[in-house]
């Protein structure tokens, strides 16, 4: 009798287990589901930069999309910006990716090389969403195979933010060239009054910002020459040395540890007259000073105002993942985010450059001086655009590794030459490995 009970329990357990497995299999098999307003298909959407600004914005856009597409439900998952790369990589390695996720340019190659992203060029060609040619080019440029994997929504060119009130009071001209920049930094530094010419990012994220500094100052127009990086070209080294020499002279001593938040707090708190970042921090400056007090310019020119060397801004946008069970629904949402209306709303709220051609013609763009200046500079024939190797899977790791050596330059433990040589060696190694793997 006891044996019979045990057998029954076993049989029950096995049946329950099989039932559970069957249920799980049923959920994951069977191809694309067709949704209807009564029974909508659900897709997951990962936001790589969840926070007080972006989360409400996406929730608003999702509500609008769901109203226009009642047969699709979008489940928003907000991922803190600092942890998004790890979350994506773990999900890809574990085979549990979202349907759609916002992917920033430097992550595209790594994810696409693992086969996680769906090429979208054909779908985009058939779409009503008109993406600007420069944005498409930048988005293809970040992929290891030159394919289009993200529908670019925006790009964030490096911007030199400066306090117009302080410049006017000191009788200084806007920092259009590097000489004007250093002259202003010197003139607007008064340590006794807690006032410095520049808020420098010496901590996390510092090295990303050094590339525009080096190339806009040196005017070197190629990142690679004969397969070797130009990073440690003597002109770039001289520019970085001059820049680093400002530390603790025209900057506060604490700048050596500044990440993004600390740098913006210093600038928006009024203790620095200039700061280098991108258009993403525009709203913070308006919140701190009101309209018209802070202006933004592209990075200064090497010698002559207007003749700029610009590092191509990093594109960002939604990507469709190959693991999606609902690619058509995933594309519908991707296309929506790339559309004129959604792209315009998103960029107006974040103060960034729209990638949609029609959104770039909207009134709010024309009224935003910093944004307009950036768009004009990018399309100015006198500007030279230099593309950094965002396609290198190791690129972001290299930037992270070089942050501590840059602090050593600021603290005068090593020279800019030593720093740039170290950096160049890492980039050359990564580039050689990349060429070996993917060819030219």
């Amino acid at each position, binding site marked *: 009798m006891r044996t019979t009970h045990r057998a029954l329990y076993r049989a029950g357990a096995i049946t329950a287990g099989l039932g*559970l497995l069957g249920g*799980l299999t049923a959920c994951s098999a069977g191809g694309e589901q067709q949704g209807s307003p009564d029974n909508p298909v659900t897709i*997951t959407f990962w936001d790589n*930069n*969840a*926070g*007080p*600004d*972006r*989360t409400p914005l996406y929730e608003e856009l999702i509500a609008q999309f769901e109203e226009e597409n009642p047969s699709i439900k979008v*489940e*928003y*998952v*907000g*991922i*803190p*910006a*600092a*942890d998004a790369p*790890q*979350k994506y990589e*773990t*999900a890809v*390695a*574990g*085979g*549990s990716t*979202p349907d759609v996720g916002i992917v920033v340019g430097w992550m595209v190659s790594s994810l696409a090389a693992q086969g996680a992203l769906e090429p979208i060029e054909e779908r985009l060609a058939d779409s009503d969403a008109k993406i600007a040619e420069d944005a498409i080019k930048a988005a293809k440029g970040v992929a290891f195979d030159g394919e289009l994997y993200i529908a670019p929504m925006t790009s964030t060119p490096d911007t030199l933010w400066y306090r117009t009130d302080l410049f006017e009071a000191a009788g200084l001209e806007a920092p259009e060239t590097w000489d004007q920049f250093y002259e202003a930094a010197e003139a607007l530094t008064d340590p006794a009054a807690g006032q410095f010419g520049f808020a420098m990012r010496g901590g996390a994220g510092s090295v990303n910002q050094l590339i525009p500094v080096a190339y806009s100052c040196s005017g070197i127009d190629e990142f690679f020459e004969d397969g070797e990086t130009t990073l440690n070209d003597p002109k770039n080294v001289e520019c970085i040395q001059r820049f680093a020499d400002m530390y603790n002279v025209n900057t506060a001593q604490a700048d050596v540890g500044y990440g*993004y*938040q600390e740098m*913006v707090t210093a600038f928006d708190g009024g203790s620095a007259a200039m700061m280098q970042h991108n258009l*993403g*921090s525009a*709203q*913070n400056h308006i919140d701190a000073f009101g309209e018209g007090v802070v202006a933004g310019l592209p990075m200064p020119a090497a010698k002559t105002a207007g003749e700029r060397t610009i590092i191509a801004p990093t594109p960002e946008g939604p990507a469709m993942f190959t693991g999606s069970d609902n690619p058509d629904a995933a594309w519908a949402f991707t296309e929506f985010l790339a559309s004129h209306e959604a792209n315009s709303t998103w960029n107006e709220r974040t103060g960034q450059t729209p990638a949609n051609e029609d959104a770039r013609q909207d009134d709010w763009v024309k009224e935003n001086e910093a944004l307009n200046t950036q768009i004009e500079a990018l399309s100015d024939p006198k500007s030279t655009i230099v593309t950094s190797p965002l396609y290198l899977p190791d690129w972001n790791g290299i930037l992270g590794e070089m942050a501590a050596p840059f602090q050593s330059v600021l603290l005068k433990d090593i020279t800019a030459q030593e720093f740039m040589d170290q950096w160049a060696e890492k980039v050359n190694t990564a580039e050689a490995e990349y060429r070996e793997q993917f060819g030219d």
Partner: protein
Amino acid sequence: MSIAARLQAPAVVNRGIRESVGSRAISLWIPLGLFLSFTLLPFYWMVVYAFRAEGSTLPLPWPLTLDHLATVWNELNFSTYFLNSTITAVFTLLFTVVLSLLAGYAMSRYEFKGKAPFMLVLLATQFVPGAMLLIPLFIIFRQFGLIDSLVALIIADTVFQLPLCAILMANFLRNIPMELEEASWIDGCGRVRGFLAVVLPLLRPAIVAVGSFAFIGAWNNFLFALMFINSNDRFTLPVGLNSTIGEYSADYGALAAGGVVAAIPVVIVFAIVQRFLVQGVSAGAVKG
């Protein structure tokens, strides 16, 4: 003793007391005060930002407001995160305590082949960072259909807490004389009943210590919650807190209010169990 000596005696005593107070201040109170201020300052900052109205720059929570708390609780989904954190931490505590009791009992009362290497391996697992096991754990949980489920968090947290807790429990059990158990067997109890009736009540400080470690470890775990969960409605408090910081901006009021929400249960747990915790940790730490 002469009259003069008698008159001088209190002065000597007073000087002794003064010196003792002075040296105690230098060796104890000042370092403790400094340590406390370093520890409490971030908490003070958190309380000020959580309860101070927007726009105020006073170093006090004034004008007092509950708006930030209401925002994080109602609008930023912290009520759900709080519930998820509570479920995860409570179940992790229960499983860790039960399993570490069983493992600790076996390690302290039985001799078996490979016991020493086994304990060494248990200890060595503490040197493996959670991030290293993320992908294998992710694949295992996915195969069992546990991704995006709090069960995955409870299992992962329990597995990571268990080795240290089992070693602590074993060390504590070694301090309880075997004769007590043997006496219960003579009185007619079996091993299980003897353990429950005699040993378990004596293990209260150890259970509290192990339970606290497990609860707080699970409550604060950010990495597993972020990696194994894929829905906003199943995230836990640490992920919610991180989501108040964007790449380009941070809502400090919400961040601080969220910090208060996350800290309260831990503070309460410690306030209740701190007496047992000290006993448990020190008892478990004596023998190796």
